């Protein structure tokens, strides 16, 4: 294989949807999520162990919800990796939001023991109303 071909292979894959992902050589960790909808809100829970509130970013904009964080564990200088299930240190995941449904002003996020819980309140007009039935 010529060096030209090699460099063609070395190009970042087209999956580099996020601009800073291409620059970063490390793999991006996609946190597993649970998503549930109740009458008045959509709840997202994401496993992001090793992320502290300082490095956590929950952003809403452009019809998108972005969850981002950095995995930080205390490591001594002279450590060598024996085995790793989890590679990379940057968590990122994006979701498309239905702007008509979600009130962007009423989004709450909470991080506890490595689990991020985001609650997206629905607009009044999109909540489920239960209509009492009278006899």
């Amino acid at each position, binding site marked *: 294989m010529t060096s030209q071909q090699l460099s063609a292979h070395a190009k970042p894959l087209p999956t580099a949807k996020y601009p800073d992902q291409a620059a970063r050589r490390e793999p991006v960790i996609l946190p597993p*999520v649970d998503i*549930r*909808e*109740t009458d008045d809100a959509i709840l997202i829970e994401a*496993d992001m*162990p090793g992320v502290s509130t300082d490095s956590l970013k929950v952003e809403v904009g452009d019809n998108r919800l972005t969850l981002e964080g950095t995995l930080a564990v205390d490591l001594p200088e002279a450590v060598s990796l024996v*085995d790793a*299930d989890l590679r990379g240190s940057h968590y990122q995941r994006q979701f498309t939001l239905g702007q008509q449904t979600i009130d962007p002003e009423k989004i709450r996020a909470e991080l506890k023991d*490595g689990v991020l819980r985001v609650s997206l309140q629905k607009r009044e007009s999109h909540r489920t109303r239960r209509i009492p039935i009278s006899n």
Partner: protein
Amino acid sequence: MWFDLMSPFETDFQFFSEIGPFRSALESWFADSFSRDLRASPASRFPLINIGETEQEFRIHVFAPGVDQKDLSVEVKDGLITIAGKRATKTEKEATVYRQERFSGEFLRTLSLPDSVDPEAITAQAKNGVVTLFLPKKAALQPRRVEVRAA
């Protein structure tokens, strides 16, 4: 040395050497779960584990987000370290579930300890959903620098 509980599998996979192009792919696929000597149980999805080593100790990072400390146990016995516990994910009535990717239920992972580790000296610490186990090596087995003096 790490005692390799999975070594019987290695002979079973010998025939892969005939396959040529497939071999490296298969080996890399199986490498993590079978031939790495440290691991006693195949990789499971939860909790993920990273292991690091320095001259003085091993560090095992157990990624167990959302696991209550009372639901997690770390036991050392007969040269094995067992990490077990359970994680219950919330369920609300009248909720529509769109995605359920997070692990829920009971888990157990076992690793074999190398002889160099002092089982009495193992400590654990939890932070942000990561449990770090510190496994100091026995003093006698730590590398020593021998000074060479000019005669």
